[in-house]
């Protein structure tokens, strides 16, 4: 499935392929459109993968700069989204391989709930903490598969492009991630 994005700009929409062509033709500012289009999802993905917003921001910033510098090597700009997830995914793997949990400083830790939060917000923060804790008990491969499928909404074809893995392998990881996650969530209803 090809889910190429388009973005309204003035009186028409610009496809990823058109934006890439503009950047490659020398319009560096057009890369800002790519950032606006994908930054949110990439930051969310990296944050869930790494568990720490600062590390995630580094991974996404490094990934986007690399994407800009290597944009000419994006062979199919219509599949820019999965190409970007691949680059940022590689940055995340690199961070994970370099950094163990014991290396993390308190400054990196997720913010504690603010006592002034409303009850609903506090409940949501508690849910988030529970799900994130469960997510981080999964192996990085299963976590990546679950996030790409169910949070980032990639198709299995796009996931294969983003990870370099075969579709049956990815399906197996997603299925196992669902089962493991459900079991952990059932322990803490």
């Amino acid at each position, binding site marked *: 499935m090809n889910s190429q994005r388009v973005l309204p700009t003035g009186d028409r929409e610009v496809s990823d392929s058109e934006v890439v062509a503009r950047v490659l033709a020398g319009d*560096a*500012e057009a*890369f*800002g459109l790519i*950032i*606006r289009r994908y*930054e*949110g*999802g990439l*930051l*969310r993905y990296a*944050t*869930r993968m790494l568990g720490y*917003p600062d590390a*995630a*921001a580094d991974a*996404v*910033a*490094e*990934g*986007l*700069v*690399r994407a*800009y*510098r*290597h944009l*000419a*090597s994006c*062979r199919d700009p219509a599949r820019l989204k999965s*190409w970007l997830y*691949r*680059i940022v995914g*590689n*940055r995340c793997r*690199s961070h994970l391989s370099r950094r163990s949990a014991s290396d993390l400083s308190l400054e990196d830790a997720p913010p504690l709930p603010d006592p002034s939060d409303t009850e609903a917000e506090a409940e*949501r923060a508690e*849910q*988030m903490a529970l*799900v*994130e804790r*469960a*997510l981080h008990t999964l192996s990085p491969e299963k976590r990546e598969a679950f*996030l790409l499928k*169910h*949070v980032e909404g990639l198709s*299995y074809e796009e996931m294969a492009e983003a990870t*370099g893995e075969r579709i049956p392998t990815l*399906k197996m990881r*997603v*299925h*196992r991630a*669902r*089962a*493991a*996650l*459900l*079991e952990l*969530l*059932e322990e803490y209803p």
Partner: protein
Amino acid sequence: MTHIDPQVHRVLDGELPADALTAAQREQLAALQRAAQVLSDLPRASVASRVMAEVRRPAPGVGRRLTHWLTERHTISISVRPVWSLALAAVLAAVAVIPGHEPAPVLGDQEGIAQFVGRFPGAKSVEVVGSFTDWQSGAIVLRDDNHDGIWRGTVVLPVGQHEYMFVVDGERWVADPLAGRYVDDGFGRENALLFVRPVAR
């Protein structure tokens, strides 16, 4: 591990409608959908200004030097593997004694010379792109004057470590098989590594 009925997986994979599930299966479906929903909040942070600052940073001014040196005659050597280094040294020694060969150009203290050699029989064009060209094509075009499939080019580069790739026929990116050292390119592939040293004086 909790057993999830295959029907639930099929619904989550978009192959079946949710109403095909039993009540118990729907509970499993709902729990997983809730988890995904909780994780779907977008972060408030942004890296846009940081990335655009890098994007707007002027490219290093090596392009003019590269163009200049591509039009000059020169003798050069950058080793890749020991066996190739020896062969290259022998060739360069022979070149050095040819009468009338122009002397090597004067280089800055922080400049060295790199020679790229690649075997691409049948290729119509081969160029080198790398960290020194900001990964832009068109600056370093290799030549196959003998039509033997061996493409060569020589350039002046800043001293230090550089990443590079060959681009064959304008579309096929190939890591130099003779580079000996490589680094992850962030796309699941590897760039070749080049170490440029100052010319001995």
